[in-house]
């Protein structure tokens, strides 16, 4: 039997309040391309972080090429020959391709950087990958796909024998995916072990030799990829236990008037031709894997991205906002996915965060009316159920769930008619999640509408009246009412065939 490149035995890791991994075993041999599958929070990223030395496991042993290793830091991970290429690339944009490949250990001669040696070495690495990128080119001038290849090149140069690719195709278009898959094939042929994290079954079938499925921190199954049907994979990802809490009752009637409709929406670079309606009182979900264009649709509607459409109507009138202010004036308001970066100002008070989207409602001639502001803030805090010590304390003091409620409260205070929520429950505990669903439901029940984007498919089952499924920038299916269940959603979003445009 071939000796394993990596052998993990009984790896466990717990974070306060949650077990991320439980006695997990994992093996990878040279030349193997292993697809790692699991839902959000199943433990995939913890496993990858432990391998990379970013996180330390609580117990268990790690063997690399038959040797027991203790990985204390990312540097240890690199030394052990393990490299990770994340979704967020870590290249320095103002340096050349060669400098990035040799980053931190540029070859030197007589105390100076040996540019010739560096360019030669980089060219050799790129040749091994079988790609044509000029080593002297600046990173800024090359595409995202090429930057990703540069990172893979860096991993090779560092002598990586185990390469972890975390959703590598989420920001690529179809022909770029083919280039990447070809590179992966040639690496595996030369003996590199590859861990490939993806939600796209069609890609997995093309590239992976074997699959491992994890769920709730436990190893569920490992085997050759052609031994599992997609149905089996979905079943194993979901497990048998009863999924999703009680669905919130909806008062929405399927014949309610359409408040917004759009035909053939296209948003560069991902959304090609999406047509859909939103009805009064509806919570509409948009499901799709990362990079399917779900965020782009919300951003387009919120006036943050230019878009084209054959017809876009809001309450019967043409809707084509050229900026955020116009969209807000029409009552279309979005909460961004990145709470800390874009959603809220954590060093300011909770009170100000709640009213800053609509200062006009609590001020006169530009002067803030404290009494009106406190009244409005108290009302928001009550309806949102925010737990706090004082309304004027810094937002940073609140838990993630309560911060998210403030972000939603801020959007609600701007008096929206259509509320666009991009991953509103990310990093939020289960109790607060339920409260956020209830807020969405209440808002819709008042005759408005909510568009809800999430990466966790179970969530749609709990709150949505209807879900549209987005794949490669197109709406490929729609589920409504009782038909919304995690299994169908997973089937439809992962997809067997990649749509070719």
């Amino acid at each position, binding site marked *: 039997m071939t000796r394993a490149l990596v052998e993990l035995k009984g790896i466990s890791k717990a974070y306060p309040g949650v077990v991320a991994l439980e006695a997990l075993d994992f093996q990878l041999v040279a030349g193997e391309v292993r697809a790692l599958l699991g839902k959000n929070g199943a433990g995939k990223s913890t496993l990858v972080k432990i391998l990379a030395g970013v996180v330390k496991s609580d117990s268990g042993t790690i063997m690399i090429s038959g040797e027991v290793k203790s990985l204390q830091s990312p540097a240890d991970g690199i030394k052990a020959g393990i490299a990770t290429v994340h979704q967020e690339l870590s290249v320095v944009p103002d340096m050349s391709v060669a400098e990035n490949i040799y980053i931190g250990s540029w070859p030197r001669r007589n105390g100076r950087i040996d540019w010739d040696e560096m360019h030669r070495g980089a060219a050799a690495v790129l040749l091994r990958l079988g790609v044509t990128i000029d080593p002297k080119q600046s990173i800024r001038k090359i595409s995202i796909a090429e930057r990703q290849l540069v990172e893979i090149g860096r991993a090779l140069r560092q002598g990586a024998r185990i390469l972890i690719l975390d959703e590598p195709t989420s920001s690529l278009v179809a022909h770029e995916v083919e280039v990447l898959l070809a590179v992966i094939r040639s690496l595996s042929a030369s003996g590199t072990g590859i861990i490939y994290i993806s939600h796209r079954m069609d890609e997995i079938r093309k590239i992976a030799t074997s699959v491992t499925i994890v769920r709730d921190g436990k190893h569920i199954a490992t085997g050759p990829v052609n031994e599992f049907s997609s149905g089996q994979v979905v079943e194993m990802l979901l497990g048998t236990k009863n999924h999703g809490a009680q669905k919130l009752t909806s008062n929405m009637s399927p014949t309610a008037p359409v408040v917004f409709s759009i035909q053939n929406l296209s948003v560069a670079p991902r959304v090609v031709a999406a047509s859909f309606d939103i009805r009064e009182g509806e919570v509409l979900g948009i499901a799709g894997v990362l990079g399917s264009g779900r965020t782009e649709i919300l951003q387009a509607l919120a006036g943050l991205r230019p878009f084209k459409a054959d017809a876009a109507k809001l309450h019967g009138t043409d809707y084509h906002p050229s900026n955020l202010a116009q969209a807000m004036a029409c009552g279309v308001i979005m909460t961004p996915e990145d709470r800390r970066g874009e959603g809220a*100002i954590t060093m300011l008070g909770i009170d100000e965060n709640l009213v*800053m989207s609509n200062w006009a409602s609590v001020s006169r001639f530009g002067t*803030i009316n404290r009494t009106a502001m406190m009244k409005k803030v108290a009302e928001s805090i009550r309806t949102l159920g925010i737990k706090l010590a004082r309304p004027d304390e810094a937002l940073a003091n609140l838990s993630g769930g309560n911060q998210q409620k403030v972000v939603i409260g801020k959007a609600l205070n701007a008096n929206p008619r259509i509320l666009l929520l991009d991953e509103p429950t990310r990093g939020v505990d289960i109790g607060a999640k339920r409260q956020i669903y209830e807020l969405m439901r209440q808002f819709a029940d008042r005759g408005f509408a909510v568009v809800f984007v999430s990466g966790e498919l179970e969530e749609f089952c709990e709150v949505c009246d209807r879900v549209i499924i987005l794949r490669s920038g197109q709406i490929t299916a729609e589920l409504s009412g009782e038909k919304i269940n995690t299994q169908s959603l997973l089937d439809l979003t992962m997809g067997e065939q990649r749509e070719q445009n």
Partner: protein
Amino acid sequence: MTVPTSIKTTETARISFFLKKRANEVGLFVAIAVLYAILAVFAPNFSTAGNLLNILRDAAFVGIIAWGMTLVLISGEIDISVGPHVAFAGVALALLAQHGINIYIAALLVMLMGACIGIFIGVLRSYFDVPSFIVTLALWLALRGIAQVMSDAVPIVIADYDFQRLGSGWFLGVPIPAIFMIVLFLLFSFISTSTVFGRSVYAVGGNAEAARLSGIPVARIRIQVFAITGVLAALTGVLMASRLGSGNSGAASGLEFDIIAAVVVGGTSLFGGRGTMLGTLLGIIFIAALVNGLVLLGVDPFAQGIVRGFVILAAVMVNIFSIKRVRI
């Protein structure tokens, strides 16, 4: 010793929250008290009324612009052009007066010009993404240059004794520039705490992207902040020309750094989002008293720079630590 929470009344909770939130100002207040006590003992004539009023007058030339600079720093920007702007405004004022324009109308024109210079900075920052440090560095060079060219680097006399009272006169026993400073302090305290514009400045500096997505007009706020500082720099130029009795292209050399030092000692973050007018006021008083005390102590003028440099550094470090410790 631990106090059971049930005994802790809401009143003491309120006071402790106040002390936490104002840790920076309370700390500075203590530092000023200590400095005054030391100087009162060791520096002859420090604690006389006349000297304290002198401190106030000196502080005014730093303080008036400092209110605008506090807003600039809170919004996450910087303006280093204010020193040369003061000199430029003084020379422009004197030239206008020389051409027979009423001095008070000339003063208004100069302040209008100050607003335009500020708008220029703000527009380049907001619409062309030129960092404000670079724009104001260019103006730092250019404005002093323009002042020198316009005046041949020779002071232009303003022979109007009534006007000279503005910079050197007294009103109710207080130097007139100090009255300007105090009135503007009250105005800017109100602006920064109680107006939509003021709070938007904090929002922009705290997280510009979140502010934009909340519908706050980020570009307009930035332009307004620079325009306000431009007007205040021009006003200081007018007062300084009045005090000197001339428009002088060499005036206010290094003033921009005295101002930034006072604002930063006052607890305003150079990274934006944090700062108060009260903190800046205390920072100004602290530095003005220190400078005055060093003179009275007879410290070698060259050595004064060394002392000031290290004291400012120490004050800012104490400030950073105190904010870190009671992070709210």
